[in-house]
């Protein structure tokens, strides 16, 4: 019937033998049931991003060019990142930048007015 060999006798059979490192890492690093441990290792924060970048940077780049960037807004994927203060700050800055950009493209005159009445340096 099928050309795949199944190990139906097992509950949750051992993973495929040919698994590549990226497949394993994306599961053992940030999947599994997360329980608070005594020894706090923030694998899920900055360090994880480092690995992610190393593993995925090529694709992230390619994918973004192809317009595939859904994971950036996927709560399941960004929940770890969401805890990251730096990430939060980035998001906030990005939102502000977007707001500024849309304001400057939508209503250039208004923006000019505002920049006149709101000098950038506040004292």
């Amino acid at each position: 019937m099928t050309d795949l060999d199944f190990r139906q006798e097992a509950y949750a059979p051992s993973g495929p033998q040919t698994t590549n490192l990226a497949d394993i890492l994306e599961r053992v690093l940030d999947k599994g049931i997360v329980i608070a441990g005594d020894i706090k290792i923030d694998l899920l924060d900055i360090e994880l991003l480092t690995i992610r970048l190393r593993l995925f940077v090529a694709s992230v780049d390619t994918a973004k060019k192809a317009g595939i960037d859904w994971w950036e807004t996927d709560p399941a994927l960004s929940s770890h990142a969401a805890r990251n203060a730096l990430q939060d700050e980035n998001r906030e800055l990005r939102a502000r930048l977007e707001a500024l950009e849309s304001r400057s493209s939508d209503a250039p005159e208004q923006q000019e007015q505002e920049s006149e009445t709101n000098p950038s340096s506040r004292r």
Partner: protein
Amino acid sequence: MTEDIPAPAEAGTEAVYVYAVCRAEEPPDLTGPAGLSCESPLRPLAVGPALTAVVQTVRAADFTDEAWQARLADEPELERYARAHHEVVCAVAARLPTVPLPLATLYHDEQRARAALSRESRRFHAALERTANHSEWGVKVYVTDAPAGQAAGAAPQPPAAGAGAGRAYLDRKRSLRDRRERQRSDALRIADAVDADVSALATASRRLPPHGGRAPEERRTQVLNATYLVAGERAAELARLARNLRERTGAQVELSGPWVPYSFVGEV
């Protein structure tokens, strides 16, 4: 100076590493994988009604933030740890219903591990129930990259007589852009179609970020990296579907599994 004598053994030099929690009335058989430490064997730790954790005593010094910083920058070392963890999880899951923990969940001692894990027994039972008789299957879709340059269909028109090089340049740019646009929408369409069909067969699904090709000569782009929780009795159907999708879309549809359902034991 005689400062560099090794510190005397004291509380805190050892830690208890937890790999997974399984449903077991009796202590499970843990022969096989060595785990992360060659100094002490894997052992069961009862953590609640019918729940047993698979733990190992490890050196605390190997699991500090600094140690991890170094490890994450050292790929062979990271790979060793990830595979060792995975190997234990797989060995346990092959024998008993199992909930894997992520890499590096550690406690100061056995009592603290038992206390912390017992508090979560409801979550473990819920996860075991959710994944009972299911496995995780990864589905990746790749599309072949069109050759760079002008090989693809829309060969640029030779510039009309009198048209300048600037015009020709713009035409070339435009056709390149159009082609990329087409490729991009085709790829997205295929990814979504595959995801929709496999999701219809699966109990649950997750999308993961696509991987980068390590080898630039690979000439293919991963457009879908998703993972699905599939009932045991539907695994054959999944294999047929993958084959069917391969024929229908012309894309490379790769199936990996069965995996221990790492991606479906959390509450996310």
